[in-house]
């Protein structure tokens, strides 16, 4: 039996791009590189307008431990440092670079392979390359590689579940770069002193399972595990539960149960950074959706606008109703194609009118579907109701803060209630309150 967790749903997979090899796209004439592409403090610019940069030039420095530097993704000239539309919503500071079309890289010829270096040197290099989790959350990877004193990690899980509909970037990476991914995993295991490594892949990717197994040979410490095809199989806590049987405590982190989860794309980026000194200036993403004229998996420079990517991929149809960064379950709807690709952009999904639901929310029927399917085993109908009525404290006692916003509840709800929206509203209220309280105390 394939491993899995309790709850979840199985939306249409729509992995139409699974067979399409990763291809490059024409470089853009300009890129917009936001200073905030990761969870944590935004980076601080270290270039000036008018300065010439190469691909890989560090253009902004990390600010504090939970932060990473940012690098130029094209060669050319810094045009402006100002506010630009950001895929996470409001406008945020970014560095605009006009490309000189030469695609000149920084000199990496005297780079020494660091894959065998000391853990500290590796953490430093991973951070220096600006690497963050590429699955979407964009948490700085070096932080995850530095568990605090007293926490030991015995299991490293590479997430190859890719459970969101449409997305196939990780799938393609596993098919095309299995050895590099494995090498990345080995480095992570060594840095953390973990005994066991796992690569969890949903069963709808048998070719990837086979490829990874072949690449593995007979290595004992690492295992490829097939997972049931179910959303959100790739969510951290669900993945850990499925693979190790351990439950990350409420409010806790994977390291509390000795686990670390990294996306396969991140492992690949780690490998490239250590082996060749390559900073994170590009990533693989999927362009798909019923409103995409041509779908595919593309290697795209960070900072390329969605408009450029969509255009070069083949364009969109007339009836495109929603542009999503990420997958249709957890992704973020964009109001403009002017937003840039950031480190956490796993896909650009163009949904047609027919695909999106425009039905107004109705009254909760108390059908219990959301309760049955919630992978965190919450009572989403009650949480949503309480937030809507302004009883955020009561919602908290129902597990408001344990919600991972996977959207399963809203997906199954016959009344089309916007649980996730309400939950986000509730959470931000709680966070604001907690901040206030801690200020009072401090």
């Amino acid at each position, binding site marked *: 039996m394939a491993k899995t967790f309790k709850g979840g749903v199985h939306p249409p997979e729509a992995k139409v791009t699974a067979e399409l090899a990763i291809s490059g796209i024409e470089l853009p004439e300009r890129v917009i590189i936001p200073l905030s592409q990761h969870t944590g403090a935004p980076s601080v610019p270290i270039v000036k307008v008018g300065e010439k940069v190469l691909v890989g030039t560090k253009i902004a420095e990390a600010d504090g431990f939970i932060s990473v530097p940012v690098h130029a993704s094209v060669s050319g000239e810094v045009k402006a440092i100002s506010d630009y539309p950001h895929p996470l919503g409001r406008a945020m500071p970014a560095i605009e670079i006009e490309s000189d079309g030469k695609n000149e890289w920084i000199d990496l010829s005297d780079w020494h392979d660091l894959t065998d270096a000391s853990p500290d040197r590796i953490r430093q290099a991973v951070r220096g390359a600006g690497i963050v989790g590429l699955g979407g959350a964009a948490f700085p990877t070096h932080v995850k590689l530095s568990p605090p004193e007293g926490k030991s990690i015995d299991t490293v899980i590479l997430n190859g579940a890719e459970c969101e509909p449409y997305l196939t970037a990780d799938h393609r990476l596993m098919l095309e770069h299995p050895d590099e991914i494995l090498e990345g995993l080995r480095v992570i295991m060594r840095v953390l002193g973990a005994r066991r490594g796992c690569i969890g892949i949903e069963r709808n990717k048998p070719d990837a399972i086979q490829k990874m197994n072949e690449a593995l040979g007979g290595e004992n410490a690492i295992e490829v595990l097939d997972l049931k095809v179910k959303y959100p199989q790739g969510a951290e*806590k669900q993945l850990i539960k499925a693979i190790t049987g351990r439950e990350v405590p*409420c409010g806790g982190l994977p390291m509390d149960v000795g686990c670390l989860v990294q996306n396969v794309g991140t492992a690949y980026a780690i490998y490239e950074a250590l082996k060749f000194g390559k900073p994170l200036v590009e990533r693989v993403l999927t362009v798909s959706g019923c409103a995409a004229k041509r779908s595919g998996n593309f290697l795209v420079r960070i900072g390329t606008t969605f408009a450029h990517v969509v255009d070069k991929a083949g364009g969109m149809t007339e009836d495109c109703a929603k542009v999503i960064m990420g997958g*249709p379950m957890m992704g973020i709807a964009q109001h403009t194609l002017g937003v840039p690709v950031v480190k956490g952009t796993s896909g650009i999904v163009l949904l047609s009118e027919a695909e999106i639901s425009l039905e107004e929310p109705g009254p909760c*029927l*108390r059908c*219990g579907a959301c*309760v049955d399917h919630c992978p965190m085993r919450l009572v989403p109908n009650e949480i949503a109701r309480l937030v809507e009525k302004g009883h955020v404290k009561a919602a908290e006692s129902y597990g408001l803060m344990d919600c991972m916003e996977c959207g399963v509840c809203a997906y199954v709800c016959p009344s089309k209630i916007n649980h996730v929206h309400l939950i986000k509203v509730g959470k931000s209220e709680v966070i604001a309150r907690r901040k206030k309280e801690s200020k009072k105390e401090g």
Partner: protein
Amino acid sequence: MSPLAVGPSPHIRQDLNIRGVMYAVVIALIPAAIGGVYFFGIRALFIMILASVAAIATEAICQKATRRAITISDGSALITGILLAFNLPPGVPYWLPIVGAVFAIAIAKIPFGGLGYNPLNPALAGRAFLLASWPVYMTAAWTAPSRGTLSGMNAITTATPLGVFKVARQILINPGAGADEMSRANSYLAELYSSASLKNLFFGNVGGCIGETSVILLLIGAAYLLIRGIICWRIPVSYIGTVALLTWMLGGKGLFHGYPLFHVLSGGLVLGAFFMATDMVTSPVTPKGKIVFGIGCGILTTVIRLYGGYPEGVSYSILIMNITVPLIDRYTRPRKLGEVGSS
């Protein structure tokens, strides 16, 4: 290109909506509705139509009067109408279903906020109101099915099977009953429990409320709802299981001499367990809560049938359990993933 929609995630939704749920239930009720007409004649059809039209009209009028959006097309009032008719004896006067439906919607549903907010199952509330106000019609307006007897047996034909059971049981547990009275009661029970009688109960060829008599037709509809995932097994199984267990334990002379199959097949249990106790709005949302709810219904139904003043107790049991739903939900919350301690 039209402006891009920005809305909260998830951006895709399952097709099933409120109407889809409601009309699935309506479809599931059709076999039993046809059965009702087959067994009790065209009168049954009129009663169903009157109750449904009255329910829908009442909802429209109430919503119009309170300036709320008119939602009669969602199908929920139609279900209330059909279920109310299913719970009426076929011989009631034609105004009775109308009064019941008006009560169900105007008193038991709309004042609480309409669909989703009513604490009691509207159809059952309507039925309870009728039973309290016009007990004679509600307990005596039985008609025998066109091809059978009211009791589904030959020895006695003036009561429904549960009515016969009640009379016989009262004789048997009465210490002062005479010997030939006892033997008559025993022979009634023997015939009630005979395979011919059970067959009548299973197919619906007995007296009873319009939609409750045919177990097989109800099960066909229930299977449809189960397969479509509209209802789940928890409430019906725990409800019927509890009734079976308790009537086996307590339904005869001495412990474990009852005849559970008779109790499962007779009266409104199957209708109630699959179509009324499972009413989403008025039953718990948590998996464990559903089982608690079913067991509660089962205990109450058995108690009323064996010890209460009425031969049947399904409606009241469900109504009483409806009231406990908020409590059940509160105390049966699932254990969160990663939650330590109490389960």
